[in-house]
């Protein structure tokens, strides 16, 4: 029997959303997404391209996941480097990349928040380009490494990412969301359960969600990762386990981070 962890299920679901030939936007510090994109390239989507925040350019080649050595992996891969101003204003509207965002709060209509939380009050790091891209893009996707009622809430504190609503002039709300519990889309503007991961029930997902979920007629179990997908993730794409920094918390996360930093420093040939 194949065993796998939630981070691996999420990476595989992200990979399966990728269509060959697409341009994929890589944010900063989103290793689950990066691992999923590379997995797609190594399986069914060899012709994807990466719009990389590191170096602000477009790359065809890829590099294994890193924390402190990310520039030495990606900077020499890009076919062009344009800086962030040109990337934001000119490059992204032309190339219309698919992008996975990680929200702090999501409502049933797919509006999401990365600005601040009210109770308990906490300022979040920032919204990047979310309030810009979500007003015009039709290629917005979400991922949530740890599904909870605090994240999936009926009333989000601020709208920074624009969801499904009739008043929008361009683009559309999120197409899809993957969490550590299941996969979702939006049907008639409402979030809908598509599949539950192995070991999780639909009832459990509803209990962990702060609003009533729609349920797809053919809801069932998410196809688990294949042995080949797991081998690629573990041995080729992310041998250091950087992807797990998004699903672990507290002392376990800190221990993994220390271990990765040490391994990167010990590697030969790196700067």
């Amino acid at each position, binding site marked *: 029997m194949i065993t796998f962890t939630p981070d691996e299920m999420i990476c595989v679901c992200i990979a399966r959303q990728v269509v060959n030939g697409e341009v994929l936007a890589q944010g900063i510090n989103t290793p689950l997404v990066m691992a999923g994109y590379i997995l797609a390239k190594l399986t069914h989507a060899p012709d994807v391209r990466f719009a990389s925040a590191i170096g602000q350019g477009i790359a065809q080649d890829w590099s294994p996941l890193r*924390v402190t050595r990310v520039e030495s992996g990606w900077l020499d891969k890009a076919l062009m480097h344009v800086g962030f101003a040109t990337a934001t204003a000119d490059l992204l509207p032309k190339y219309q990349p698919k992008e996975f965002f990680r929200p702090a709060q999501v409502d049933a209509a797919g509006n999401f928040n990365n600005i601040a939380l009210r109770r308990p009050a906490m300022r979040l790091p920032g919204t990047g380009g979310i309030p810009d891209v979500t007003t015009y893009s039709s290629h917005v996707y979400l991922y949530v490494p740890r599904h909870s009622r605090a994240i999936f809430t009926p009333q989000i504190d601020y709208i920074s990412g624009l969801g499904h609503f009739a008043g929008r002039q361009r683009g559309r709300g999120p197409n899809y969301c993957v969490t550590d519990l299941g996969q979702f889309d939006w049907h008639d503007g409402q979030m809908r359960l598509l599949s539950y991961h192995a070991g999780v029930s639909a009832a459990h997902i509803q209990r962990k969600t702060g609003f009533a979920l729609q349920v797809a007629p053919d809801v069932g179990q998410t196809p688990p990762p294949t042995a080949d997908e797991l081998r690629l993730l573990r041995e080729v794409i992310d041998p250091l386990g950087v992807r797990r*920094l998004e699903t672990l918390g507290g002392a376990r996360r800190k221990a993994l981070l220390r271990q990765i930093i040490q391994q990167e420093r010990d590697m030969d040939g790196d700067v």
Partner: protein
Amino acid sequence: MAGIVCDLSAACQHVTDGATLALGGMTLYRRPVAFVAALLASPHPPRDLTLLNFTAGFESDLLVGAGCVATVRSVYFGLESFGLAPMFTRLATSGAVRVMDETEASLVYGLRAQMAGVGFMPSTAWQGTDLLRLRPDVQTVTDPYTGETLTAFPAISIDVAVLHGLEADEEGNVKLNQNLGIDLELVYTAQTVICTVERIVPRLQKSADAVIVPAPGVDFIALAPRGASPSSCHPLYAVDGEAIMRYVDACQAGRFDDYLREFLAGDV
């Protein structure tokens, strides 16, 4: 060019109380850390700064923690894999530091308006989101051709921009790497542009993996070897992850002041 090369402490004197200060580079990459340290070690560190960064990281958290910053304008303020920027998170949450919410579009179109010499640039960004409510100073305009409501991002003026580069020459040319962030836009818009560099050479050589800002784009150049560390200066050195973790640990233990004292003394 005479007078361009100066020492760090002289360069710091251009940052005065109440100024809008922009720091170049990206989150943990090519940040002017040595400049910030020199600013904080000066007899009278500036107060009431408006700190404007495309993305803000370790160097900006030091300035915020030391009480130099009244207002932050940035699309992201954090330490990437190393987590939240501890002092920004604490002081922005408590309201001690004011946040002017910015996004990629508001900073980019604001800088483009400044470059074009016009008061604003229109964009579809923010329409339908809460950003317009959070930034009541940002107005909307009606597209005179289509009638569509657009966001009118106001021009951004910057008093001092500080970049960190790989090399400079005595003519005042400066070499950056290709992880540019908005460094070129800062050069085009800031009143005063300061660049710290890893080394100063007689004459810069062009290379395919670098971008050169030709003189007289930069007003002052100061030598600062390893001046971006613990952020990176690719390809010369990588992010110093252990150093950043030590900072986070110190702040989480409530020891920012001790950390800053030791950092400025060169002990951490």
